[in-house]
């Protein structure tokens, strides 16, 4: 049996009276590529934001490599208004809510649905800055340049990453001047620069043409093998999802309605009704 990388247990995210993610439980094992699909507004990105610490889930437990990472139970006003399940399951356990940077430090990196590059910085600086987190230096050694070795290492690694992504020739261009597909690649390169163990991709193929989508599929496979990553992605391009995923989770109205291999999910009646059937119209 392989090691569990990400373990999500009974995760509920409630905003006011709206339950965006309802009692989601899932398991991602080392080296897998797992996809999360579902119609618009199903709560996929909210689930991502809970895992990466942008939101604190209202209830539930998230573990990373077996270690509890995020844990919460309904508190204060939410106690009365809570609309999810298992309200009492975690009341006795420790509340854990690390900030996104701490979660990234543990080894979870992400990209964004709407590209969030550092706009006026160059391609090279974008990747180099993501190396900042793991650099062994302090503000004095960095200012007075006694961290030369560390700085050189960061630059060399950023250079290697960019060369590999085919972005080395445009390294001095401002990030936003790149074509859309390259910006997506740069965002992935930047996420890889934080040395993650688990990579979360939020709609990596959004806005890409079929050719680019095809390239992306082999690209995701390549980086998974090269960096020994586990990949978890949200995607609407069904050919991409069915092509690369080992397993798929399907969300609808915040609840998990199906999980399994691509073949199993494609044959699932509820999934066809809620999501895939609609996609056929395109």
């Amino acid at each position, binding site marked *: 049996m392989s090691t569990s990388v990400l373990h999500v247990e009974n995760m509920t995210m409630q905003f006011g009276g709206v339950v965006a993610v309802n009692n989601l439980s899932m398991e991602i094992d080392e080296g897998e590529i797992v996809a999360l699909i579902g119609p618009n507004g199903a709560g996929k990105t909210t689930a991502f934001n809970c895992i990466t610490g942008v939101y604190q889930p209202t209830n539930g437990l998230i573990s990373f490599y077996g270690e509890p990472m995020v844990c919460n139970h309904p508190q204060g006003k939410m106690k009365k208004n809570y609309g999810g399940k298992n309200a009492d399951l975690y009341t006795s356990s420790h509340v854990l809510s690390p900030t996104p940077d701490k979660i*990234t430090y543990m080894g979870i990196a992400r990209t964004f649905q709407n590209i969030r590059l550092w706009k006026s910085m160059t391609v090279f600086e974008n990747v180099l800055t993501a190396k900042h987190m793991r650099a062994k230096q302090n*503000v004095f050694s960095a200012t007075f340049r006694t961290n030369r070795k560390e700085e050189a290492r960061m630059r060399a690694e950023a250079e290697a990453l960019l060369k590999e992504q085919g972005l080395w020739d445009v390294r001095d261009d401002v990030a936003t001047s790149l074509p859309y597909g390259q910006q997506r690649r740069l965002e992935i390169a930047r996420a890889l620069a934080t040395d993650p163990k688990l990579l979360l991709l939020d709609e990596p193929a959004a806005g890409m043409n079929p050719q680019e989508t095809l390239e992306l599929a082999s690209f995701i496979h390549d980086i998974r093998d090269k960096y020994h990553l586990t990949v978890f992605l949200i995607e609407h391009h069904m050919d991409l999802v069915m092509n690369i995923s080992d397993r798929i989770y399907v969300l609808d109205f915040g609840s998990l309605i199906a999980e399994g291999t691509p073949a199993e999910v494609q044959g699932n009646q509820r999934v066809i009704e809620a999501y895939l059937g609609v996609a056929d119209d395109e």
Partner: protein
Amino acid sequence: MEHQLNRKKMSSGALITVIVTVILLVAVIVLENTMNANSMLFTVLKKAAVYSLVAVSLNLVNGFTGLFSLGQAGFMLLGAYTYGILTIPAEMRESVYYIYQGSAINFSLQGLFQGLFGTAGVGGAIGLILGVLLAIILAGLVAAGFAYLIGLPVLRLKSDYLAIATLGFAEIIRAVFQWDKLGRVTNGANMLKGFPTFSSFNIKDASGAVAVRLSAFMPLLIAALCIFVIILLINSSYGRAFKAIREDEIAAEAMGINLAKHKQMSFCISSFFSGVAGALFAMFAATVQARSFTSAMTYEILLIVVIGGIGSVSGSVLASFLYIFCSEWWLRFLDSGALPFGNISVPFFRNGFRMVVFSVIIMIIVLFFRRGIMGTNEFSDLINQTRRKAKTKKEAAE
């Protein structure tokens, strides 16, 4: 080869900028010792040096980290008072603090050092310099310490709210320093005076006459060194992290940059240098009074940063010099009622007219340079660009 590629080499533009700065500093020493020492030039140079340091430090938080802070006058006040309180000579304290029957602190830092090295000759000079430098550094540290405490709650705020909170802090600090219960330390609403000023740096011969004048060179040197350190910081890994926070906070946090820590760091470092500038301002003005560190002072500095270009150190420095030269010197004749040449009197030139013209000039600058004089460029970038252009032109010609 690989190794060379990875190391960021100093660009020729940066090198030229450093060389030009050094030449200008040397030129100031030469001018100072040849020209009439009472010339307006040196007064405005001193003031511009102080302002350029505050402007760059404000730019570090506002322009490079994207935190809209308006507490600069407060931090300068802390620096100025720290410097003043620690360097008023023991024998003068009685007369300075006469309203409160003497000061609570009865030593001066340079006095302590002079106790070690002697008061006369070289020993006295070393004691003075060490004491003044230590006081300047402590001025920065006190400002940074306060910034840390204020930053804990305030840096959770964003944009306008942060501006209001920091502005409020500066006003509170100003009121607290005028409180007469603290009179034995701060001298209440009265001024502190008698501490070493820039002219204390002039080298005197045995008879007490000035041999080498350094009073305009020293503030410029200190400001240049501090700005150099800030430039090093901005170009380091931490500087890149600051810029990442400015560009996109959510992405910065997702890439592992601890927002609270880095914002706090930028805020404290900026305040440190504002505190140093405050000490320099005290030396420039020769007196310290809480009344002079109003919010109008912060706006003046903010105006300099905006005119120079938010996110450009060169712009802030250039704008400080232009601003101070114009407002204090070049436009003075507008107040005097006559043109600077000939003997023509102009009827509508009267007191206050200078500020009218000055405001119009600023409006014109802001209209024509929407992103400030320098935008986000630095001198070194411009030099590199021109050189690259010249090179391609030459190649095209061949």
